[in-house]
């Protein structure tokens, strides 16, 4: 059985992660902003709106300035105030070592398959379930209590049980990633589908859509932007789940984090955290770019909703 020390390590790592979370959100919106700039620049659509100075500022300059200030504040804080906090420059150097030593590649090779598998499962279950719960009151009545109960359950508290059921192998990691992501995907999507204006459904009926046609040609396309939002939220949650699982049964990024923390290599540990932030923000930003590509009518500003 695991004992108190590991639990403490887990708690510490989780709080590092959640502290990093807000930084991640900032980085994510920078990425998203950069993405939309790219999309705007590459767009050949009929609406060739020239970007105004205000747009450039809102999309690129301000977010970059925000990240730069944060980096500067970190550097100052580490050098002048907090002794134990490695300066950002040191963390970046450790990050270069991480890449050069091949440790990062190793961790990615170990972790990404479980992330991909768990996330794919969460999407495969969460998207149809969320759509169904949004479309049908009957389905919602059936599924609401179990889904909401599991949603509010702390997945971390289920880890001992999961290990007992799935062992300490691939299955365990995949299930943790799945459980971290699936309910967020489901419930985000349900909320989005319910948000679709009834008037659009009536309009569809007036113009001859059958019962099935209303789903196919009105509710489904109207829900697509919400699918994209749910996928983005799910991706960020999946990365968190991956790390938590790997901290419980050491593997990939989890064993890297654990090893560095154990030998007080805080700079390397933080470099790993930075990599994880970039991974989550990159996934979220990439899915945002897909959304702009395939749902160009929807202009949701910013990152995860």
């Amino acid at each position, binding site marked *: 059985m695991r004992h108190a020390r590991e639990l403490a390590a887990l708690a510490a790592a989780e709080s590092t992660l959640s502290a990093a979370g807000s930084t991640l959100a900032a980085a994510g919106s920078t990425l998203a902003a950069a993405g939309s700039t790219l999309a705007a620049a590459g767009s050949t659509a*009929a609406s060739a709106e020239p970007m105004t100075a205000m747009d450039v500022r809102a999309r690129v300059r301000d977010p970059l300035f925000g990240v730069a200030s944060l980096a500067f504040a970190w550097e100052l804080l580490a050098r002048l105030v907090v002794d134990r906090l490695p300066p950002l420059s040191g963390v970046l150097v450790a990050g270069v070592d991480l890449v050069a030593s091949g440790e990062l590649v190793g961790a990615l090779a170990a972790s990404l398959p479980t992330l991909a598998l768990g996330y794919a499962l969460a999407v495969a279950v969460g998207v149809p379930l969320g759509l169904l719960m949004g479309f049908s009151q009957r389905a919602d009545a059936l599924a609401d209590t179990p889904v909401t109960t599991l949603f509010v359950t702390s997945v971390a508290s289920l880890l001992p049980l999961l290990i007992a059921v799935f062992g300490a192998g691939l299955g365990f990691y995949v299930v943790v990633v799945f459980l971290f992501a699936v309910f967020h995907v489901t419930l985000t999507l349900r909320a989005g589908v319910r948000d679709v204006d009834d008037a659009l459904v*009536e309009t569809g009926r*007036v*113009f*001859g*859509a059958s019962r099935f046609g209303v789903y196919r040609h009105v509710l489904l396309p*109207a829900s*697509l932007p919400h699918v994209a939002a749910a996928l983005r939220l799910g991706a960020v949650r999946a990365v968190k789940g991956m790390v938590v699982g790997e901290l419980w049964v050491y593997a990939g990024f989890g064993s890297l984090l654990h090893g560095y923390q154990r030998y007080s290599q805080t700079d390397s540990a933080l470099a790993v955290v930075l990599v994880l932030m970039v991974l989550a923000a990159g996934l979220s930003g990439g899915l945002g770019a897909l959304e702009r590509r395939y749902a*160009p*009518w929807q202009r949701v500003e910013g990152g995860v909703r």
Partner: protein
Amino acid sequence: MTTLRAEAVRKTYRSDAGDVIAVDDVSFTVEDREFVSVVGPSGCGKTTLLRLFAGLETPTAGRVLVDGERIEGPSPERAMVFQSFNLFDWRTVRGNVAFGLERQGVPEAERRERVDDWLDTVGLADFADAYPDELSGGMRQRVGLARALAVDPDVLLMDEPFGALDAQTRAVLQSELLDLWEDRRTTVLFVTHDIEEALLLSDRVLVMGAAPNAVTRTVDVPFERPRHGRELETTPAFAEYRREIWDHLRGEQ
């Protein structure tokens, strides 16, 4: 030949405070190719009346008929234009106008031709590939109008279609609607709270009061067609009709 008919129609809604009577014993006929407006204050039930003819509501009592047949549900034969446009954001202008034709299974080539014709007619040919978000309110309602006309409906049901537009755009669209209707006379039931709009467009105006929510007066509008808004609205006869309806509505309250 398409006539609309309401026979002793009543519509009540359940609410916590008891039954609410939205439409109270209304009877009237809209003749083939007649343009009839319903005016009245907010809450008088005029939109409910229109929704009954659209087949989006069923009467609690009485009958709602099209060509003598009871209305069983929505149909593109009775196409609708909405105050809040209700365009499909995920479709381009062309895709919005094509929606009804797609549901009817009109082949792609014919569909495209008919849609482009209507886009030409409402002056949106250059915006065929734009999304509704990129359009002004007036342009969006032109899309709404083209979407309704493209299915070649027997009846046009219009629910305060220009109510969300600024005064100038409204005047432009009113005159465009007059022109369209000169070319292609369908039976129209038009709901508005704007007395001048009703007089300008209609052959007949039904005035609805609140409490009871019933048609309390019918006004025949004899102005010659084709009509031109600015000229007509400044004539003494127009002012006389406007005052008559206005006084009647005030007397109701």
